[in-house]
């Protein structure tokens, strides 16, 4: 419990900053919606001139792009990208923070098992992510309700927003497994930015071809906004694959962390 509280406190500042940044992005984007909706017809005509591959990559291909939900899915992919960086940072720093600050000796000579330490840290990161999502969703839905021109399904809006959370969990898990395997990460941010962007671009390329199998490579493509808007649910296979990846990564992290030698600095 003490480690959990300590970690939560350590993450407090960054959680607040990340939450506010995400909110700022969504507020800026959504405030453009009303003028955007007015000019919908003109936009449609311009977009038709774009090559299909580009439209796919940018996510402009949905018929419902001009509804508020369709419009929302555009900034959503950008917000997801930012949120993924936050989660990856959290995950990577769980173990490497202690290595970098050379505090691992302090923590690991205390009368706790490594499992207990890792669990407390993991929970603190998890709670930080949950808080970010709660605050974000409250702000995003508030803004959406302010700028809407027609009624929309709040459930679908929630489902869309919740994809941020799922993708964050995936990157949190990636972060942890990397941080326990790599002996010494010099810069947490470099590692997380690189990983997140690689997945993001891989995701963009898989979009241009429309190949279903390639979607499995990038977590950013596990949740298709158009599908969610149409069916008001997620694609089950991708949910399962995502959950399995998270569980495997976390389980492996526990195993590796327990066997790992903590070297002197």
């Amino acid at each position: 419990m003490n480690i959990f509280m300590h970690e939560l406190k350590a993450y407090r500042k960054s959680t607040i900053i990340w939450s506010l940044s995400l909110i700022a992005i969504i507020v800026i984007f959504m405030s453009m919606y009303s003028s955007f909706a007015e000019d919908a017809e003109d936009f449609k005509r311009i977009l038709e001139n774009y090559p299909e591959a580009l439209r796919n990559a940018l996510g402009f291909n949905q018929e419902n792009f001009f509804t508020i939900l369709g419009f929302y899915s555009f900034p959503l992919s950008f917000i997801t990208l930012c949120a993924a960086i936050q989660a990856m940072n959290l995950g990577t720093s769980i173990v490497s923070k202690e290595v970098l600050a050379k505090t691992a000796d302090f923590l690991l000579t205390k009368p706790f098992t490594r499992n207990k330490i890792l669990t407390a840290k993991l929970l603190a990161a998890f709670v930080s992510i949950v808080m970010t999502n709660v605050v974000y969703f409250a702000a995003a839905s508030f803004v959406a309700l302010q700028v809407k021109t027609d009624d929309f399904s709040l459930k679908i809006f929630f489902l869309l927003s919740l994809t941020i959370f799922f993708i964050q969990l995936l990157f949190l898990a990636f972060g942890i497994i990397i941080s326990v395997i790599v002996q010494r990460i010099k810069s947490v941010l470099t590692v997380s930015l690189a990983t997140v962007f690689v997945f993001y671009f891989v995701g963009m390329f898989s979009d241009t071809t429309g190949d279903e199998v390639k979607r499995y490579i990038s977590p950013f493509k596990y949740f298709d906004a158009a599908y969610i808007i149409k069916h008001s649910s997620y694609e089950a296979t991708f949910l399962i694959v995502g959950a399995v990846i998270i569980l495997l990564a976390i389980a492996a992290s526990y195993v590796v962390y327990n066997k790992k030698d903590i070297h002197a600095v």
Partner: protein
Amino acid sequence: MNVIEIKNLTKTYGKSRGISDISFNVEQGEIFGFIGPNGAGKSTTIRTLLSLIYPTSGSATIFGKDCIRFAPEIKKEIGYLPSEVFYYDNMKVKELLKYSASFYKKDCSKRIKDLAEIMDLDLNKKIDDLSLGNKKKVGIVQGLLHEPKLIILDEPTSGLDPLMQQKFFELLEEENKKGATILFSSHILSEVQRLCNRVAIIKEGKIITVEKISTLQENNYKKFKIETKYALDKDYFQIGGVNKLEVNNNVISFLFRGNINTVMKKIAEIDIANLWIEEPDLEEIFMHYYEKEA
């Protein structure tokens, strides 16, 4: 009763040497010295005892329990002070110590206050702003605040000024009197000599000898320096047990090992102006072990 029992402990890191086949025991209530130069394997041994690293083979028990399997339980009663201390920089000393205390299920607030007073440590400063010596003091308080039964110190005095070092040693002796066992690793022999009852000498990952400090000194030579009134025959002291005989005008010096009476008789027969007989200090014994092995 043995507080620490180390049996054939081996740790190899890839190609480079770690420790090999280390065995020794630390008895309850003693201050046990662990000496050797840098890189001899002192920290590796200690880090294995603390289950920070895992042995390649062999085992160790602390309080009779396997130090890996029962690590969390054992660590309740261990206080550890590493050679370099690092803490969360953005915390205040007080917060850090409170955090440290929260891992042990007892109230340590009074103890923290007392220790900080003895070590002259400002609890309200930020760790970031502390000098190396003051960080070390935080480490000392942190290592002792839960009144551990076993105190493990890994080259603890670096960064402490002589006055603080003195206070720290007094603190350790006091803890020892209250029943704490201490494992004291160092490459500075005078501090080991000052504190410890027994000592293990480690070299290149292997234990060379485990001895009482007093035995180490007894079994060793004595240093003689004699000033005579008149010049003596050069070979007057050339008897069994005498080494490194040097005659410089009226001053004769040599090392002697053996029955002290034989030398004393020889000295009694001559007219001397002055006489010095010295115990070799640990440094010399230590060098002796290292030279012999090399």
